[in-house]
């Protein structure tokens, strides 16, 4: 298969925070239509990888490349990455008192449209779109009348992430620990939402510590991130193995090589 088919290609990515190297050479290829799960013990660099893809700037990319649809992603601002179709579902969605959900979502959608040289969405169409997408995550109508994430429960915040994803229709969604802090019902709703949004044109990277989420969102590939490197890749059976045996066997394998 040709390289051009890769939606995302990460080449030997090294990332440091204040001289401490967190990612030590990541290689990953993601094609349209695929779901990749990135698993690994705490502190292995999973969230740093997600942040690097979304464009957070509190760390330095010291080496390597991130190519998205053939373009160098690291040269784009976070907003332009979003407008190019990248979406990050936050592990800890930020509460923003005073910024209403409606204003936030409308501004987001219209900035995306502006980037694509489309006219702003008329108010009526916007409300219709909101109603439509709310159903996907069974989000309470009341929540969209509030300030962004303010006073939302853990589950509501995660639903809100998937709701935003549904509205913004990204090509590449990166879901960072979307399952953490969810009870079983919320987990089901959130996963259903993600599954409904899957299509042959878009790709998803699921970052998780537990295998639990992968019962609901079945991945095509599973990668294990440990000490800043992808140390093992496989299909969904790798996740099962990790569930049964934990991470210790991988840690031992890797650590004994050093």
């Amino acid at each position, binding site marked *: 298969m040709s390289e051009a088919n890769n939606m995302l290609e990460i080449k030997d990515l090294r990332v440091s925070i204040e001289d401490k190297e967190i990612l030590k050479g990541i290689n990953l290829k993601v094609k349209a239509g695929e779901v990749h799960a990135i698993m690994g013990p705490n502190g292995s660099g999973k969230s740093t990888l997600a942040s690097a893809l979304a464009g957070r700037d509190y760390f330095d990319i010291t080496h390597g490349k991130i190519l998205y649809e053939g373009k160098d992603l690291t040269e784009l601002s976070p907003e332009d990455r979003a407008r190019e179709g990248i979406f990050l579902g936050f592990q800890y969605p930020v509460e923003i008192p*005073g910024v209403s959900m409606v204003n936030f979502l409308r501004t987001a959608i219209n900035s995306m449209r502006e980037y694509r040289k489309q006219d702003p969405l008329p108010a009526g169409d916007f409300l219709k779109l909101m109603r439509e997408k709310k159903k996907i995550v069974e989000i309470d109508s009341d929540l969209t009348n509030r300030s962004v994430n303010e006073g939302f429960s853990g589950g509501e915040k995660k639903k809100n992430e998937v709701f935003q994803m549904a509205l913004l229709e990204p090509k590449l969604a990166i879901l960072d620990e979307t399952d953490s802090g969810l009870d079983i019902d919320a987990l089901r709703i959130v996963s259903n939402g993600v599954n409904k949004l899957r299509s042959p044109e878009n790709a998803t990277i699921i970052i998780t510590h537990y295998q639990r989420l992968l019962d609901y969102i079945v991945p095509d590939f599973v990668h294990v991130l440990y000490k800043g490197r992808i140390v093992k890749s496989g299909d969904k059976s790798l996740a099962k193995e990790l569930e049964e045996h934990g991470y210790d066997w991988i840690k031992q394998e890797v650590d004994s090589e050093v």
Partner: protein
Amino acid sequence: METLTATEKYLDLFEDHQKEISQGDPEFVKKLRTEALASFRESGFPVRKEERYKYTHLEPVFDGELDFDFSPRQISFDDSELFRCDVPMLDAHVLTVLNGFFYHPEDSALTELDNGIIYGSLKEAIQKHPDLVEKYLGKNAPTFDEPFVALNTAFSQDGIFLYVPKGIQMGKPIQIIHLLLSDKNQMVHHRNLFVLEENASAQVIVCDHTLSPHMFLTNSVTEAYTGENSDLDVLRLQNEHNNSCQVTNTWIHQERNSRCQHGTITLHGGMVRNNLRISMEGEGAECSALGLFLTDKSQHVDSYTVIEHNQPHCISNQYYKGVLDDVSTGAFNGKIHVHPNAQKTEAFQTNNNILLSDTARMYTKPRLEIYADDVKCSHGATVGQLDEDALFYLQSRGIPKDESRLMLMDAFAWDVISKIKQLALQIRIIDLVGKRLRGELSRCNNCAMHCDE
């Protein structure tokens, strides 16, 4: 040759022009002036090391070359052409004060409604209703140890008088527009007096504007008396140019079960000092003091508040916020004073500030003096930057960084604006603040002269 101090200059100025200043004054006004001048002679201007004026040194400004009108100057101007109100579509009784004097080319100086409401020129009210004015004028704003109140009491000749008698609800708000327009640098002392008798209510909007590029120094006093169970809303919108200096002194006296809200929104102005003192003199009174300022360049805004809890069961809330950019500076000094018998007091104060540049400075100092033991009081003050996490969150949804910053600043300001009781005004203020934050509101955008260019 002997050089006069600023204090001496003002004492001389008064002596030299006493006749003009107090022309037509009844005895009680003359007495107020004499007493005020004596207080000022005693105190002089605050010195730099004085805690109250630590961050705002006003003496050099008062010492500048400034013209002073001892009687209304004949200026005719087309207000519709020169001045476009910042709060249009607001159905209000509009009262204009030009360079410290009530401006009424056509209307009479004082309006007296059938229901007993009186509003208009304070000077005129002193002539027509001396007994009524005497009961309140100078009763609440002390001149002792308050040099700027003392100066104003000595020099001011006019301003707005509002009287709402017992049981009357004044549906339509009063909008006072203080305009400064001159062909030379100018000093203005104007004075407002609002009296609400028991069960009365009124809303007042005060707008401060400059219409010419000259240096203006305004030292104003507003006294308000809120009778038992009355309801007063005052919102002040400051939008003078950055070559001006404004000292406001607002003294509010609250009787039993009265409610009062006082808000100050500062959009432009070079050096601004706002003194606010609310004295709760009856049980069960409630007040809220709001403040929001947005500064850039070398603007300076200093808010000094004192809430006197003199009686039990009173509630006070203070919300003050500032957004500072460039090399602008701000100060907040907020005092809650709970007297020994003021049990069951609830007093809260918040002061939050955002610095948008490394060179902006904010000084904040809450002061609580509590002499009663059964009270609920709290205060909190912060000085910080915009929340980086929130900024990234907005950007990650495709919203450009500048727009994201503005959204966060709007949200920060909204916290104060949302507490303004009058909805129509809320919406207008959000719009103005939004424009100010986006740099679209020139300090002179309501002036056709564009003199800041």
